[in-house]
């Protein structure tokens, strides 16, 4: 016999576990680490441009293997980078694209905040847009979330209650407010990257 809080808690843990399977760690030599999100089973990894400070970063996969990565595309404007590692059988997340993202939705972030490996935080969607307070100056579209992000979260996945990718965690604008680059912006970046 379980009560509704126990069910909720088990559901939340399930989503986090599922999402962790698509989370990687990206290191730049001795200087800190960021996060990355598996984009394809064949070794494409998406992360923030600001996480990739070297031409040859190292990607640590969910199974612990550390592999050298190639930087295929780097877009400081959108703060996105596309990496590739020689691996197969990786687990990309389903994309949440097209369906409108509503304020109030529950969301989860996983990453390595302050270096704490594969840590999760939860919160809700504040809103989506290019004209939100604290983000208007960037003139870019953000998915703002009421959720704790810290250094080391950058590049990691933000997911909905079905574990679908909503965006790439990128900025914190306050102690309990963060911003993710929405999935449709990631897709636009990838379209340009493959055209080039």
């Amino acid at each position: 016999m379980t009560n509704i809080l126990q069910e909720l808690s088990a559901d939340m843990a399930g989503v986090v576990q599922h999402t962790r399977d698509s989370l990687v760690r990206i290191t730049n030599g001795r200087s800190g680490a960021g996060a990355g999100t598996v984009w394809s089973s064949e070794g494409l990894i998406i992360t923030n441009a600001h996480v990739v400070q070297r031409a040859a970063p190292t990607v640590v996969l969910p199974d612990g293997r550390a592999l050298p990565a190639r930087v295929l595309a780097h877009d400081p404007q959108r703060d996105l980078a596309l990496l590739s590692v020689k691996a197969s059988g990786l687990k990309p997340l389903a994309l949440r694209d097209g369906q409108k993202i509503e304020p109030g939705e529950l969301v989860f972030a996983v990453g390595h905040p302050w270096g704490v490996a594969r840590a999760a935080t939860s919160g809700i969607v504040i809103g989506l847009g290019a004209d939100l307070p604290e983000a208007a100056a960037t003139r870019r579209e953000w998915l703002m979330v009421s959720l704790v992000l810290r250094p080391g979260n950058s590049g990691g996945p933000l997911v909905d209650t079905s574990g679908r990718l909503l965006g790439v965690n990128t900025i914190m604008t306050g102690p309990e407010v963060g911003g993710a680059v929405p999935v449709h912006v990631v897709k636009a970046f990838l379209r340009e990257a493959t055209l080039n």
Partner: protein
Amino acid sequence: MADVLQAVSAALVETVAAAEPAVVRVDARRRLGATGIVWSSDGVIVTAAHVVERDHDITIGLAGGQTAPATLLGRDGAIDLAVLRTEARGLRAPAWAEPADLAVGGLVLALGRTSDRLLATLGIISALDEGWTTPQGGQIDHYLQTDAVMYPGFSGGPLIDAQQRVAGLNSSSLVSGLNLALPAPTVRRAVEALLSGRPVRRGYLGITAQPVPLPDVVRERLGQETGLLLTHVEPRSPAEKSRLIQGDTLVTLNGRPVRSLADLQAVLSGEQVGERVPAKVVRAGAVQDLNITIGERGQAAA
């Protein structure tokens, strides 16, 4: 997978959507817009006083993106409340929750509208307590605090409970660093006062006081644990004119127990200004009856 989690998330989205028509943008300051709540369908809007930086050229942004001009009906800076009127029609006023309907630990959403779109944060009611007095001397019927993040521009907007009622009007500037909300009775009283054209009045005695335990004999006789020890009585104040003296312990005022400063502030809520009301004080160990004329807090009396 994740049935309960998805149901909870969907219910949160639904709660935000249900409140959407009641949440308006208030453009009355230079930089960032702020938020307001539809008070009545005839165009009265409540918001936080500190976001209304100008008295003219105020615009309201409605759900759906329309805008309408608004006029400032009045403000009470001491409780950070301003009341506006707009000519916009078809507004829907939300139901409010009374403090007795709320409980610490209950889920709440804070909503804001700084542009066309509605924004939301989630938290719980962190504290719900008796009345308190703001640093500016405003009386608030219940202390209501949340841990929901106050995103920029959320001041003046609603805190919404799980029953989709307005639990309070958010203000991030009542006390710096705390996310506090004005409960329904406080907003209602202030709106009624401002709409009736009466200035908001606040009772005033001219004392400095602190709660102290009552002597055993008094405690047994009055069934009350504490009273207010007068540590200072202002010269020529209503208290002095009513013959209160330093060292008295005030125990009742107008028939109501005065156990704390909050009790006193609740009695001095304004209706009694100018009235002569009965009081009991402990003086030299004995209970004495007095009559006290309550003054009005003005500029001279801080």
